[in-house]
Protein backbone atom coordinates (compact mmCIF):
# COMPACT_ATOMS: atom_id res chain seq x y z
CA UNK A 1 0.00 0.00 0.00
CA UNK A 2 1.41 3.37 -0.99
CA UNK A 3 0.79 6.77 0.56
CA UNK A 4 -2.14 7.62 -1.70
CA UNK A 5 -3.93 4.37 -0.97
CA UNK A 6 -3.35 4.91 2.71
CA UNK A 7 -4.72 8.42 2.49
CA UNK A 8 -7.88 7.16 0.76
CA UNK A 9 -8.42 4.51 3.40
CA UNK A 10 -7.68 6.92 6.23
CA UNK A 11 -10.10 9.53 4.95
CA UNK A 12 -12.83 6.93 4.60
CA UNK A 13 -12.40 5.38 8.04
CA UNK A 14 -10.54 7.65 10.46
CA UNK A 15 -13.36 10.03 11.35
CA UNK A 16 -15.84 7.50 12.81
CA UNK A 17 -13.06 5.69 14.65
CA UNK A 18 -11.69 8.91 16.07
CA UNK A 19 -15.18 10.00 17.12
CA UNK A 20 -15.69 6.59 18.76
CA UNK A 21 -12.42 6.89 20.67
CA UNK A 22 -13.20 10.43 21.71
CA UNK A 23 -16.75 9.53 22.64
CA UNK A 24 -15.71 6.53 24.71
CA UNK A 25 -12.65 7.99 26.45
CA UNK A 26 -13.58 11.68 26.54
CA UNK A 27 -9.94 12.53 25.87
CA UNK A 28 -8.56 13.95 22.66
CA UNK A 29 -4.92 13.03 23.39
CA UNK A 30 -5.88 9.40 24.00
CA UNK A 31 -8.06 9.34 20.89
CA UNK A 32 -5.17 10.66 18.76
CA UNK A 33 -2.66 8.18 20.21
CA UNK A 34 -4.93 5.17 19.89
CA UNK A 35 -5.97 6.12 16.37
CA UNK A 36 -2.36 6.29 15.24
CA UNK A 37 -1.53 2.97 16.88
CA UNK A 38 -4.63 1.43 15.33
CA UNK A 39 -3.46 2.17 11.80
CA UNK A 40 0.04 0.97 12.54
CA UNK A 41 -1.25 -2.35 13.88
CA UNK A 42 -3.58 -2.64 10.93
CA UNK A 43 -0.73 -2.46 8.43
CA UNK A 44 1.36 -4.88 10.38
CA UNK A 45 -1.28 -7.57 10.67
CA UNK A 46 -3.87 -6.98 7.99
CA UNK A 47 -4.84 -9.87 5.74
CA UNK A 48 -4.00 -9.42 2.04
CA UNK A 49 -7.56 -9.13 0.74
CA UNK A 50 -10.25 -7.44 2.77
CA UNK A 51 -13.53 -5.83 1.71
CA UNK A 52 -14.10 -2.22 2.78
CA UNK A 53 -16.84 -3.00 5.33
CA UNK A 54 -14.65 -5.68 6.90
CA UNK A 55 -11.69 -3.27 7.02
CA UNK A 56 -13.77 -0.75 8.93
CA UNK A 57 -14.86 -3.40 11.42
CA UNK A 58 -11.29 -4.65 11.75
CA UNK A 59 -10.07 -1.13 12.55
CA UNK A 60 -12.77 -0.73 15.20
CA UNK A 61 -11.67 -4.03 16.66
CA UNK A 62 -8.02 -3.00 16.88
CA UNK A 63 -8.97 0.34 18.43
CA UNK A 64 -11.19 -1.41 20.98
CA UNK A 65 -8.43 -3.85 21.91
CA UNK A 66 -5.97 -1.00 22.36
CA UNK A 67 -8.42 0.82 24.61
CA UNK A 68 -8.94 -2.38 26.57
CA UNK A 69 -5.16 -2.67 27.06
CA UNK A 70 -5.03 0.85 28.42
CA UNK A 71 -7.96 0.26 30.73
CA UNK A 72 -6.48 -3.00 31.95
CA UNK A 73 -3.55 -1.02 33.29
CA UNK A 74 -6.01 1.44 34.82
CA UNK A 75 -4.94 4.08 32.34
CA UNK A 76 -7.59 6.59 31.19
CA UNK A 77 -10.32 4.38 32.63
CA UNK A 78 -12.08 7.28 34.28
CA UNK A 79 -13.95 9.77 32.23
CA UNK A 80 -12.13 13.12 32.62
CA UNK A 81 -13.84 15.53 35.00
CA UNK A 82 -12.86 18.74 33.30
CA UNK A 83 -13.62 17.71 29.75
CA UNK A 84 -16.32 19.78 28.18
CA UNK A 85 -15.41 19.60 24.54
CA UNK A 86 -17.76 17.91 22.16
CA UNK A 87 -20.42 16.86 24.63
CA UNK A 88 -23.96 17.97 24.44
CA UNK A 89 -26.05 19.55 27.09
CA UNK A 90 -29.33 19.76 25.28
CA UNK A 91 -31.39 22.71 26.48
CA UNK A 92 -34.70 21.10 25.56
CA UNK A 93 -34.29 17.75 27.20
CA UNK A 94 -31.65 18.74 29.75
CA UNK A 95 -29.95 15.46 29.03
CA UNK A 96 -26.46 15.84 30.26
CA UNK A 97 -24.87 13.00 28.37
CA UNK A 98 -21.47 13.92 29.68
CA UNK A 99 -22.50 13.19 33.25
CA UNK A 100 -24.05 9.91 32.18
CA UNK A 101 -20.90 8.89 30.34
CA UNK A 102 -18.81 9.67 33.38
CA UNK A 103 -20.96 7.36 35.48
CA UNK A 104 -20.79 4.46 33.02
CA UNK A 105 -17.89 2.03 32.99
CA UNK A 106 -15.67 1.76 29.89
CA UNK A 107 -17.29 -1.40 28.55
CA UNK A 108 -20.75 0.09 28.88
CA UNK A 109 -19.65 3.19 26.99
CA UNK A 110 -18.19 1.00 24.26
CA UNK A 111 -21.30 -1.11 23.89
CA UNK A 112 -23.67 1.84 23.84
CA UNK A 113 -21.62 3.66 21.25
CA UNK A 114 -21.27 0.69 18.93
CA UNK A 115 -24.93 -0.29 19.20
CA UNK A 116 -26.68 3.07 19.15
CA UNK A 117 -24.29 5.46 17.44
CA UNK A 118 -22.71 3.08 14.95
CA UNK A 119 -25.88 0.99 14.68
CA UNK A 120 -23.98 -2.29 14.76
CA UNK A 121 -25.65 -5.66 15.21
CA UNK A 122 -24.92 -7.89 18.21
CA UNK A 123 -22.77 -10.11 16.02
CA UNK A 124 -20.70 -7.16 14.85
CA UNK A 125 -20.33 -5.87 18.41
CA UNK A 126 -19.28 -9.35 19.47
CA UNK A 127 -16.57 -9.52 16.82
CA UNK A 128 -15.28 -6.05 17.74
CA UNK A 129 -15.31 -6.38 21.51
CA UNK A 130 -14.37 -10.05 21.70
CA UNK A 131 -17.58 -10.83 23.58
CA UNK A 132 -19.66 -13.87 22.72
CA UNK A 133 -22.78 -12.87 20.82
CA UNK A 134 -25.21 -14.20 23.50
CA UNK A 135 -23.36 -12.08 26.09
CA UNK A 136 -23.74 -8.87 24.11
CA UNK A 137 -27.49 -8.70 24.54
CA UNK A 138 -27.68 -8.77 28.37
CA UNK A 139 -24.64 -6.51 28.75
CA UNK A 140 -26.08 -4.00 26.33
CA UNK A 141 -29.43 -4.19 28.08
CA UNK A 142 -27.74 -3.50 31.42
CA UNK A 143 -25.79 -0.58 29.95
CA UNK A 144 -28.89 0.86 28.36
CA UNK A 145 -30.84 0.58 31.63
CA UNK A 146 -28.06 2.30 33.50
CA UNK A 147 -27.77 5.07 30.91
CA UNK A 148 -31.52 5.57 30.89
CA UNK A 149 -31.53 5.76 34.68
CA UNK A 150 -28.80 8.36 34.59
CA UNK A 151 -30.50 10.43 31.93
CA UNK A 152 -34.07 10.12 33.21
CA UNK A 153 -33.98 12.29 36.36
CA UNK A 154 -32.92 15.39 34.43
CA UNK A 155 -35.52 14.64 31.77
CA UNK A 156 -38.29 14.35 34.33
CA UNK A 157 -37.32 17.68 35.88
CA UNK A 158 -37.60 19.36 32.48
Amino acid at each position, binding site marked *: *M*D*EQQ*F*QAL*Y*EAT*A*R*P*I*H*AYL*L*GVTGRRDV*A*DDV*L*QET*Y*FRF*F*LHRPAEMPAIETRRYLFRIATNLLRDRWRTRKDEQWPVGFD*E*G*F*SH*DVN*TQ*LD*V*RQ*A*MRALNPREREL*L*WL*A*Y*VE*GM*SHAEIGSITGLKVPSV*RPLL*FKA*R*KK*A*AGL*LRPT*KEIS
Partner: protein
Amino acid sequence: MTNDRCERESSVVAATRSGESTLELDNHLATCAACTETKDVTRSLLQHAAITWAQSQPPEPKRIWRKMQERRRQFAWRRAARGLTVMWVLATVYFVGLSEHYLFAVWRTQSAQLEVAARFLEDGMTLAGIVIAVISVALGSGYLLVSGRRTDARPL
Protein backbone atom coordinates in the same frame (compact mmCIF):
# COMPACT_ATOMS: atom_id res chain seq x y z
CA MET B 1 -46.49 -2.92 27.89
CA THR B 2 -43.12 -4.55 28.08
CA ASN B 3 -40.56 -3.27 30.48
CA ASP B 4 -37.66 -5.58 29.89
CA ARG B 5 -36.39 -6.50 26.42
CA CYS B 6 -38.03 -6.39 23.06
CA GLU B 7 -37.25 -8.04 19.75
CA ARG B 8 -37.93 -4.80 17.94
CA GLU B 9 -35.19 -2.77 19.62
CA SER B 10 -32.91 -3.01 16.59
CA SER B 11 -35.67 -1.60 14.35
CA VAL B 12 -36.13 1.23 16.83
CA VAL B 13 -32.41 2.01 16.79
CA ALA B 14 -32.34 1.94 12.99
CA ALA B 15 -35.39 4.22 12.78
CA THR B 16 -33.98 6.67 15.33
CA ARG B 17 -30.65 6.79 13.51
CA SER B 18 -32.21 7.36 10.12
CA GLY B 19 -35.03 9.57 11.40
CA GLU B 20 -37.51 7.52 9.38
CA SER B 21 -40.17 5.66 11.30
CA THR B 22 -43.34 3.86 10.27
CA LEU B 23 -46.82 4.20 11.72
CA GLU B 24 -46.67 0.61 12.84
CA LEU B 25 -43.40 1.21 14.69
CA ASP B 26 -44.76 4.39 16.29
CA ASN B 27 -47.77 2.41 17.53
CA HIS B 28 -45.45 -0.21 18.94
CA LEU B 29 -43.38 2.45 20.67
CA ALA B 30 -46.48 3.76 22.40
CA THR B 31 -46.97 0.40 24.11
CA CYS B 32 -43.40 -0.80 24.67
CA ALA B 33 -41.39 0.68 27.51
CA ALA B 34 -38.19 -1.11 26.49
CA CYS B 35 -38.32 0.34 22.99
CA THR B 36 -39.18 3.81 24.29
CA GLU B 37 -36.19 3.63 26.58
CA THR B 38 -34.02 2.43 23.68
CA LYS B 39 -35.25 5.35 21.58
CA ASP B 40 -34.51 7.90 24.32
CA VAL B 41 -31.03 6.57 24.97
CA THR B 42 -30.26 6.34 21.25
CA ARG B 43 -31.44 9.90 20.67
CA SER B 44 -29.33 11.25 23.52
CA LEU B 45 -26.27 9.36 22.34
CA LEU B 46 -26.77 10.51 18.77
CA GLN B 47 -26.92 14.14 19.91
CA HIS B 48 -23.77 13.58 21.88
CA ALA B 49 -22.16 11.81 18.91
CA ALA B 50 -23.12 14.55 16.45
CA ILE B 51 -21.23 17.15 18.45
CA THR B 52 -18.34 14.78 19.10
CA TRP B 53 -18.20 14.01 15.37
CA ALA B 54 -18.23 17.71 14.47
CA GLN B 55 -15.38 18.44 16.84
CA SER B 56 -13.43 15.29 16.11
CA GLN B 57 -10.39 16.23 14.10
CA PRO B 58 -8.29 13.17 13.40
CA PRO B 59 -4.60 13.91 12.87
CA GLU B 60 -3.54 14.64 9.29
CA PRO B 61 -2.98 11.45 7.23
CA LYS B 62 0.46 12.70 6.13
CA ARG B 63 1.53 12.98 9.76
CA ILE B 64 0.27 9.49 10.54
CA TRP B 65 1.97 8.12 7.41
CA ARG B 66 5.31 9.71 8.35
CA LYS B 67 5.16 8.33 11.88
CA MET B 68 4.22 4.90 10.57
CA GLN B 69 7.20 4.88 8.22
CA GLU B 70 9.46 5.82 11.09
CA ARG B 71 8.05 3.06 13.29
CA ARG B 72 8.27 0.55 10.45
CA ARG B 73 12.00 1.26 10.14
CA GLN B 74 12.46 0.82 13.90
CA PHE B 75 10.46 -2.37 13.75
CA ALA B 76 12.61 -3.72 10.90
CA TRP B 77 15.77 -2.86 12.83
CA ARG B 78 14.53 -4.71 15.90
CA ARG B 79 13.60 -7.69 13.78
CA ALA B 80 17.04 -7.78 12.15
CA ALA B 81 18.74 -7.35 15.51
CA ARG B 82 16.97 -10.46 16.78
CA GLY B 83 18.94 -12.57 14.27
CA LEU B 84 22.18 -10.99 15.39
CA THR B 85 21.28 -11.70 19.01
CA VAL B 86 20.80 -15.40 18.18
CA MET B 87 24.22 -15.47 16.55
CA TRP B 88 25.75 -13.66 19.52
CA VAL B 89 24.25 -16.20 21.94
CA LEU B 90 25.54 -19.13 19.86
CA ALA B 91 29.01 -17.56 19.72
CA THR B 92 29.00 -17.07 23.50
CA VAL B 93 27.94 -20.68 24.07
CA TYR B 94 30.72 -21.88 21.79
CA PHE B 95 33.29 -19.68 23.55
CA VAL B 96 32.24 -20.88 27.00
CA GLY B 97 32.26 -24.52 25.85
CA LEU B 98 35.65 -24.17 24.27
CA SER B 99 37.13 -22.49 27.36
CA GLU B 100 35.73 -25.17 29.61
CA HIS B 101 37.11 -27.99 27.49
CA TYR B 102 40.45 -26.32 27.18
CA LEU B 103 40.77 -25.59 30.92
CA PHE B 104 39.57 -29.08 31.75
CA ALA B 105 42.18 -30.58 29.43
CA VAL B 106 44.93 -28.44 30.94
CA TRP B 107 43.86 -29.35 34.44
CA ARG B 108 43.75 -33.06 33.69
CA THR B 109 46.94 -33.43 31.76
CA GLN B 110 50.44 -33.23 33.09
CA SER B 111 53.01 -31.29 31.23
CA ALA B 112 53.89 -34.45 29.31
CA GLN B 113 50.30 -34.82 28.18
CA LEU B 114 49.88 -31.25 26.93
CA GLU B 115 50.84 -32.33 23.47
CA VAL B 116 48.02 -34.89 23.45
CA ALA B 117 45.56 -32.29 24.72
CA ALA B 118 46.60 -29.86 22.04
CA ARG B 119 46.08 -32.52 19.39
CA PHE B 120 42.64 -33.27 20.89
CA LEU B 121 41.75 -29.59 20.71
CA GLU B 122 43.01 -29.33 17.19
CA ASP B 123 41.03 -32.33 16.03
CA GLY B 124 37.76 -32.48 17.97
CA MET B 125 37.16 -28.96 19.20
CA THR B 126 38.29 -27.14 16.10
CA LEU B 127 35.99 -29.25 14.00
CA ALA B 128 33.13 -28.70 16.46
CA GLY B 129 33.87 -24.97 16.39
CA ILE B 130 33.73 -24.83 12.64
CA VAL B 131 30.48 -26.76 12.58
CA ILE B 132 28.89 -24.46 15.17
CA ALA B 133 30.16 -21.37 13.35
CA VAL B 134 28.73 -22.60 10.03
CA ILE B 135 25.39 -23.40 11.69
CA SER B 136 25.33 -19.97 13.35
CA VAL B 137 26.07 -18.18 10.10
CA ALA B 138 23.48 -20.27 8.23
CA LEU B 139 20.81 -19.67 10.89
CA GLY B 140 21.58 -15.98 11.17
CA SER B 141 21.64 -15.41 7.41
CA GLY B 142 18.51 -17.47 6.93
CA TYR B 143 16.72 -15.50 9.61
CA LEU B 144 17.81 -12.17 8.14
CA LEU B 145 16.72 -13.31 4.68
CA VAL B 146 13.27 -14.46 5.84
CA SER B 147 12.85 -11.40 8.03
CA GLY B 148 13.83 -9.12 5.14
CA ARG B 149 11.34 -10.81 2.80
CA ARG B 150 8.60 -10.50 5.39
CA THR B 151 9.28 -6.77 5.78
CA ASP B 152 9.29 -6.25 2.00
CA ALA B 153 6.03 -8.14 1.63
CA ARG B 154 4.23 -5.72 3.90
CA PRO B 155 5.22 -2.23 2.90
CA LEU B 156 3.50 0.52 4.79
